[in-house]
């Protein structure tokens, strides 16, 4: 992905009236978001608040109402939105013979990975892994990576197609405190050096307070949104989390 000095701040992504209903149950209703490139927006909320559903809906994986727009603020032209997605973990069991190359190539290319390694693709993947200092992992088995290593590999894959929006599901397991710090530092680096907007689902209120530009408190609908301070000191926040986090 092309590195830039500073994000232009002129692109914006709008989520309009997004809603998800499964059977009789309303999971999300009337979600409106406005995200700019060069910013990190964190979504917080309790378990079952619909955070993962929101990501699935934005990726068009589940049926939903509403739409997503991607606009250039200067001329108002609507462009096609490319979304890079970083899941929490992969569905790869221990002892599975899938290398990092195999995994990324399966998503990036149609050239059958079981046949042979494609030189050009191999170099491209390696280049992209380098951004997160993960190029030495390319021939390792995915199931043997540590939580932090897997996150870096998944991030590399997510930015390969030069996305305008990066959707991140924060890892909850397999990462130690140092790994978490590194994860957030990497996101911060991405935000500052690449032209993209980042939307992060987070479970760690302290890290959100430290790194996010904007926070969205979610529970079926948006309870509160704004700067870290605005959200963390609101009564909605206290009602959900029951305490105040010092900002």
């Amino acid at each position, binding site marked *: 992905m092309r590195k830039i000095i500073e994000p232009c701040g002129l692109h914006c992504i709008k989520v309009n009236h997004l809603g998800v209903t499964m059977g009789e149950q309303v999971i999300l209703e009337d979600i409106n978001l406005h995200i700019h490139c060069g910013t990190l927006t964190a979504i917080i909320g309790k378990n079952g608040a619909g955070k993962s559903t929101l*990501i699935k809906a934005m990726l068009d994986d589940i049926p939903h109402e509403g739409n997503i727009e991607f606009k250039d603020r200067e001329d108002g032209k609507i462009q096609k939105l490319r979304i890079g997605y970083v899941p929490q973990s992969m*569905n790869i069991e221990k002892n*599975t*013979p*899938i290398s990092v190359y*195999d995994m990324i190539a*399966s998503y990036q290319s149609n050239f059958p990975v079981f046949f042979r390694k494609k030189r050009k693709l191999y170099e491209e993947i390696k280049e992209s892994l380098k951004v997160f200092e993960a190029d030495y992992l390319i*021939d390792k088995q995915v199931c043997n990576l540590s939580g932090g290593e897997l996150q870096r590999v998944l991030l590399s894959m997510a930015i390969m197609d030069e996305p305008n929006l990066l959707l991140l599901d924060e890892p909850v397991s397999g990462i130690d405190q140092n790994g978490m710090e590194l994860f957030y530092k990497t996101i911060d680096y991405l935000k500052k050096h690449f032209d993209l907007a980042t939307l992060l689902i987070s479970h760690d209120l302290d890290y959100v307070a430290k790194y996010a530009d904007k926070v969205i408190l979610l529970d079926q609908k948006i309870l509160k949104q704004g700067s870290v301070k605005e959200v963390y000191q609101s009564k909605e926040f206290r009602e959900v989390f029951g305490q105040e986090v010092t900002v």
Partner: protein
Amino acid sequence: MTEFFTAWWQYGFMRNAFLAVMIITPLFGLLGTMIVNRKMAFFSDALGHSALTGIAVGVVLGVTDTNLSMVVFAVIFALLLNKISSKSTASTDTIISVFSSCSVAVGLAILSKGGNFSKYSSLLVGDILSITRREIVYLIVIFAVTLIFWAVAFNKLNAVSMHRTLARSRHIPAALLENLFAVLIALIVMLSIKWVGILIINALLILPAASSRNLAVNMREYHFFSILFSMFSGILGLIISYFTNVATGPMIIIVASVIYFVTFAYQKAMHGN
């Protein structure tokens, strides 16, 4: 020794059986890799059992060629299982087990009516020596279809298996691929069930891939070893069964099992996990 082999080769049925093994085993080795990765062992087992029901349905409907009703039933059964396990919240294993037991019971009940089941019991262990030229042609066709599917869709199917939402975010048609894969397994299992046998067909799908996982570290090795082990077990099993006068299917599985245990021990010794 050479005399032994030339004698063996002189029988037409042996040559046909050899050809069939050379087509079926690499196919099973290939498909097995994905079946094991996707944890579909139970699914393919249920499909094998559904052959009985398919034949029973054919008998009830008065179809002259029960092979046809068997294939049609298996394809419907596979799609149904896929649909239910993607919709339901109960564990996939349980659902498959319920449907599989139910369909086997119905099949057995119908086929055993009037004490006629012995007519169908050869289906249980299979008889590769009775395969005809025409049936080999069917196998060649399905072999070609599988190779094309594998070359075109393998990456995408692999992507769906590793993370469905991530695959969807890249516009990969997950449900379509899963259904096509299920149909392909159904077709192959049905076309080879007469030669391999209901009781052991799943072992032939799972064992080579499982053995390969003990050695392989990437997809290329995984496929290579799986196909190699599958073909080796098939050919050696066929030869041994000829000389020992044992049914071929079980002999192939015995060889494949031995390979599994050897690779398992090797992996333990090398990596200790």
